[in-house]
């Protein structure tokens, strides 16, 4: 099924997510699309941004590569000093995160399941990944919003000589003595293959390594806004991108979407 209308830009995804951030909230934005949300916060809404490396209350950034390396955010960018900021160390920063004191986090995802499980730190065929603050944020933040493209590109068939991890997971020990071995395409990707070029990221069960279970509250993509019901009660399609309908969104989704009577079109003004 061809796309019925253009997909949204990364900026539009961020713009839609930004509306979910309530006035006064303390917010941690992941790298990528999530970080863009700060550019689209509605007028009158004041947020307090927290970053894992120990900063609360930053705002504008210096142009790329400029600024003071002693005032960084968790994405490695340099925010300007702004009134009301607080600096603290990583112990305090993760006490804040783990203790549930962050109101909302916006993260990217590789897969989200119909139960709200999140996988966003390792592509299994790579065999090694970066967890960073994602597990602490996803596990312990009051509201976890995923901002991502609805589908991923299907991987090209891997040449036999390609490098692949040993699948040992978190403790990634050196490759087996025989050296790297070729892997066939990951079974997930076959199961969730939608077309020759696209793989679903919203799936029945994640088979990528999890970041946290049942943590996601909402998914905003380039074609839809989806609520994740608590206690594994599934996914509800709330909004579609202009020109998209429930059927066309479902076609790019490998988990069953519940479609309520009040399905809306995303507004992006």
């Amino acid at each position, binding site marked *: 099924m061809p796309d019925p209308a253009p997909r949204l830009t990364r900026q539009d995804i961020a713009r839609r997510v930004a509306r979910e951030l309530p006035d006064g909230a303390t917010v941690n934005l992941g790298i990528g699309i999530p970080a863009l949300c700060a550019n689209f916060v509605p007028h009158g809404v004041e947020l307090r941004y927290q970053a894992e490396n120990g900063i609360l209350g930053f705002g504008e950034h210096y142009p790329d590569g400029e600024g003071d390396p002693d005032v960084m955010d968790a994405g490695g960018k340099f925010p300007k000093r702004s009134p009301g900021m607080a600096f603290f160390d990583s112990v305090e*920063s993760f006490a804040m995160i783990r203790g549930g004191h962050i109101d909302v986090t916006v993260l990217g995802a590789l897969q989200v399941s119909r139960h709200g499980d999140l996988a966003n730190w390792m592509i299994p065929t790579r065999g090694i990944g970066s967890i960073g603050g994602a597990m602490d944020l996803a596990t312990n933040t009051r509201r976890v919003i995923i901002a991502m493209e609805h589908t991923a590109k299907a991987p090209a068939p891997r040449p036999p000589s390609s490098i692949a991890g040993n699948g040992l997971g978190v403790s990634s020990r050196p490759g087996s003595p025989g050296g790297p071995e070729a892997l066939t395409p990951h079974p997930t990707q076959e199961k969730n293959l939608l077309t020759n070029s696209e793989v679903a990221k919203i799936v029945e069960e994640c088979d990528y390594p999890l970041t946290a279970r049942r943590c996601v509250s909402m998914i905003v993509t380039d074609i839809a806004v989806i609520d994740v019901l608590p206690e594994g009660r599934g996914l509800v399609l709330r909004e579609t991108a202009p020109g998209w309908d429930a059927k066309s969104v479902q076609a790019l989704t490998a988990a069953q979407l519940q479609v309520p009577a009040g399905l809306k079109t995303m507004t992006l003004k």
Partner: protein
Amino acid sequence: MPKNKLVRTFRDAVADIPDGATVMIGGFGGAGGQPTRLMLALRDHGVKNLTLIGNVAGISKLTGYGWPKGLDPIDQGIFFASGQANRIICSFPVTGSPNLVSEIEKAWREGRAEVDIVPQGTLIERIRAAGAGIAAFYTPTGAGTPVAKGREVRIFNGREHLLEYALPADFALVRAKMADAHGNLMYVGTSRAFNPAMATAAKVVIAEVDEVVPSGGLDPERIGTPGVYVDRIVVRDPGDPLP
């Protein structure tokens, strides 16, 4: 606890780090708060079979993460490029793209290095625990994920938690803005990060600072690491071009 903690050169400060040592490297990832001169001295010291403990590791060189424009970033990858480290315990050792391969990922792919990937909050809490006399603790982070593998799981308030153990080291290399004659350290901005906790968690703590002031030269309200934790201090040359 030596009273005179000042060491003249970076080389002297790391000279007794032996083969096989476990070494914490402070900061977050990026230039700010990274003990870059100590790292370079340790590399030049030529020691082998190091286990490193860091956070974001080996990324800056590839992506410029946390480094100002126009400089060639230095990160923990130098110990893998040189073959001196064969293990790292960290939270963020690889880029988002399989095509941007760090020295650490390369060493791992080639079977030269073991990489233990730990959630950042668990990593810093384990380091803190080592310094704070806490043998182990229960955190909800990582439950139901590959991190739980081999961990004791226990339910508190209806939620699964993992038992995580203190993570000490033989040496910690930390970076601060200023030190005083007592070894008190003052940090600025986000350059705290992993430094204060690491300064409590190693048998020998070596601090790289921009400036040393006499007793009374630091505001007692601004001490990030009380001197009791610090064994050695090395001062950078004024005007050192490295951030």
